[in-house]
C-alpha cells in the first residue's frame, strides 16, 4: 500500500517485515528514528519473535549482531558516521566470519570537526571492510534494498550495508509503497545459516589462521564479492518480478546512452541531477547521468559500458580522500582503463552542504566549455579557505581551523585572533 511516510519509519517497518530475530540498537543522529520505530514495533507486538537489545555502544551493536548471527538468528542493526567507525573492527570481523548481517547506514559526515549532516565519508571510510555497500536513490529504494539485502546476504553469507542519506532521506516524507508481509515472506525464505553455533553439532568459529592459509581465506572473500556482482542484478530482477517495481541493481543510467557528458553519483543527489539533466537537455545539451547503486562490489564492467561512450564523465562525490581527491573516481578510472574519456571529480555536499540545481548547472556549463578542472570543489568559498591557510602560515598560534573559518564567516563572534 502506498502511503506518505518518513524514510526512517518506512525502513523500520520494512525491516520488521523481514522478520529479524535479533536487533541491536545504539542511537546516533540521524538514524535514531529507525531504531526507535523498531523498538516500538517490538513492544507493541507488531514485530514478534524479535529480541531488541539496547547496547552500550556501536561496537557492542555490531558485536551483539555477530553473536546472534553466528547462533543462527536473522539480525539487524543501524548506525552512521562515528558509530560506523567505532564498530570498524567488528565490521571486518563480521565479513571475515561470513555472517549475513544487514545494517542501515544513515550516511553522515565524519569528524573532526563534528558534523551531523549528510555526506558519504562514513561508508567510504569502510569501503574495504568486506561488506556489500548499496546506495539508495530515494526512500522507496531504501525500503526495497533492505529486502534485497537479506536475500543477498543470506545467499552469499556476506554482510550488507544499505546506505541512505542521513536527514535527506531518513527525515524526509515522501510517497512509499511498503512491501506486504506475504510478499516479503515469499521473497525471503527462512534463514539457513552456512555455519551455526549449535550444541548438537559443535563447530569452532573464529580460529586463528596463519600465513599458510590466510591468503586463501582472503581470496574467498574477494570471490564472494565477485559473486555478489552477479547476484545483485539477479536479485533486483527477481525483486521487480515479485514486487512490480525496479529497484537496486548495480547502476541505473538516466538519459546517458548517447550523452556526451555523463554525471555519475551515489545516493539521493541523483534526483536533483536528473532534474538538471532534463533542463539542460531541453536546452539542447548532450548530457545524462548514472546512479551507482552498488559501490562494493564495484561493477567495473558495467561502469565501463555505461560511461565508455561519453566524451566526459563527471564523478560527483560526497566524500574526499584528502590529498588525492575522489574515491569513487578511482573505481571509475579503473573501469574506463585506456578509454578516451575525460574524467573529472567534483567534490560536493560535504557535511550536509546543499547541492543545488543552480550550482550544478553552473558547474556543467563550465564543463561544456572545457573549463572544468580535474578536481573541483562545488561551492567552495575559496576566499575563506585561503584566508585560513594564510593564517596558518603566519606562524603564531593560529588556533583550530574550524574556529578560524567560522569567525571569518561571522558565524562565531570575533574574539582575539
Amino acid at each position, binding site marked *: 500500500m502506498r502511503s506518505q511516510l518518513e524514510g526512517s519509519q518506512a525502513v523500520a517497518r520494512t525491516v520488521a517485515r523481514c522478520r529479524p530475530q535479533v536487533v541491536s540498537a545504539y542511537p546516533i543522529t540521524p538514524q535514531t528514528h529507525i531504531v526507535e520505530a523498531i523498538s516500538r514495533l517490538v513492544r507493541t507486538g507488531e514485530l514478534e519473535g524479535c529480541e531488541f537489545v539496547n547496547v552500550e555502544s556501536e561496537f557492542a551493536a555490531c558485536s551483539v549482531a555477530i553473536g546472534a548471527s553466528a547462533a543462527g538468528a536473522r539480525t539487524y542493526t543501524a548506525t552512521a558516521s562515528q558509530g560506523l567507525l567505532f564498530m570498524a573492527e567488528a565490521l571486518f570481523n563480521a565479513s571475515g566470519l561470513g555472517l549475513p548481517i544487514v545494517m542501515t547506514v544513515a550516511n553522515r559526515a565524519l569528524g573532526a570537526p563534528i558534523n551531523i549532516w549528510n555526506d558519504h565519508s562514513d561508508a567510504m571510510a569502510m569501503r574495504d571492510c568486506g561488506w556489500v555497500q548499496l546506495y539508495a536513490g530515494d526512500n522507496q529504494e531504501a525500503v526495497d534494498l533492505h529486502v534485497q539485502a537479506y536475500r543477498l546476504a543470506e545467499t552469499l553469507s556476506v554482510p550488507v550495508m544499505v546506505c541512505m542519506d542521513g536527514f535527506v532521506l531518513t527525515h*524526509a516524507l515522501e510517497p512509499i509503497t511498503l512491501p506486504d508481509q506475504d510478499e516479503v515472506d515469499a521473497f525471503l525464505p527462512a534463514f539457513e545459516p552456512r555455519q551455526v553455533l549449535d550444541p548438537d553439532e559443535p563447530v569452532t568459529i573464529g580460529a586463528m589462521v596463519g600465513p599458510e592459509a590466510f591468503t586463501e581465506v582472503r581470496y574467498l572473500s574477494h570471490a564472494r564479492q565477485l559473486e555478489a556482482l552477479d547476484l545483485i542484478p539477479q536479485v533486483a530482477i527477481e525483486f521487480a518480478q515479485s514486487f512490480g517495481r525496479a529497484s537496486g541493481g548495480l547502476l541505473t543510467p538516466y538519459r546517458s546512452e548517447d550523452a556526451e557528458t555523463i554525471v555519475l553519483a551515489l545516493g539521493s543527489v*541523483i534526483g536533483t541531477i536528473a532534474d538538471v539533466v532534463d533542463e539542460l537537455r531541453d536546452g539542447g545539451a548532450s548530457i545524462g547521468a548514472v546512479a551507482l547503486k552498488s559501490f562494493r562490489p564495484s561493477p567495473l564492467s558495467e561502469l565501463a559500458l555505461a560511461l565508455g561512450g561519453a566524451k566526459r564523465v563527471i564523478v560527483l562525490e560526497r566524500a574526499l580522500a584528502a590529498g588525492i581527491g575522489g574515491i569513487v573516481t578511482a573505481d571509475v578510472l579503473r573501469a574506463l582503463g585506456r578509454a578516451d574519456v575525460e574524467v573529472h571529480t567534483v567534490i560536493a555536499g560535504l557535511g550536509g552542504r546543499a547541492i543545488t540545481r543552480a550550482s550544478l548547472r553552473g558547474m556543467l556549463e563550465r564543463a561544456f566549455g572545457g573549463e572544468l578542472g580535474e578536481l573541483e570543489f562545488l561551492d567552495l568559498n575559496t576566499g575563506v579557505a585561503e584566508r585560513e591557510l594564510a593564517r596558518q602560515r603566519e606562524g603564531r598560534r593560529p588556533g583550530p581551523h574550524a574556529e578560524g573559518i567560522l569567525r571569518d564567516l561571522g558565524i562565531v563572534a570575533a574574539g582575539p585572533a
Partner: protein
Amino acid sequence: MFAARVHGRGGQGVVTAAELLSLAAFADGLEAQAFPSFGSERMGAPVVAFCRIDSKPIRLREPIVEADAVVVQDPTLLHHVQVFEGLGEQGYVLINSSRTIEELGLGELAERHRRERIATVPAGELARARLGRPIPNAALLGALIALTGVVSLAALERAIGDRFKGAAAVGNAGAARDAYEHLRRPVHA
C-alpha cells in the same frame, strides 16, 4: 511545482506543519515531499521545514531556495532571520500574528509582491481557543489553504486525523477550519 517553506522555532511544530501539508497533498492524490532543515534538537532555536507539492513525482532534493509560499509561525523571527529570501514575485506569505502586515513593518515587502497574497492570521490564538495551547501549525495550514488553494481543506482535515489522536485531532482540525474561515478568499492556484 509548489514549494512552501515554514519558519519557526523549535517546539512550535514547524516540522509537523510541513509534514501535515505533505500528508494533505498526498490525500488529494498529489505527490509531496516534506523535510526539515536539520540541526541539533533545541527548544527555541530557529527551525525551517520544507514541503514540495506537484502533480508528478518529485526527484529534487535541494532545500527550497525559490519559495512559492513562506509561512512564519513565530513573528519574532521576522527581523532576525531572512525568512523571505527566495520568495517569488507571485509568492504567498502567511504570518502567525494578530497584527496587520503594515503593523509588522512589512509594508514594503507587500508592495514588492501581490498584496492580496500577503496575509497574517492569529493562528496561535485560534489554536489556543481550540486546543488549549498556542501551537499554530494546523491553523496556519488552514489559512494557507484559504490563501493558496494548493490542497483541499478536507485533505488537511484527513491528514490531521491520521497524524493526531483524540482531542488533539479534534482541536487541530477545528483550528485549521477557523483559520480557513478567517482568511477565506476565492480559491486560485
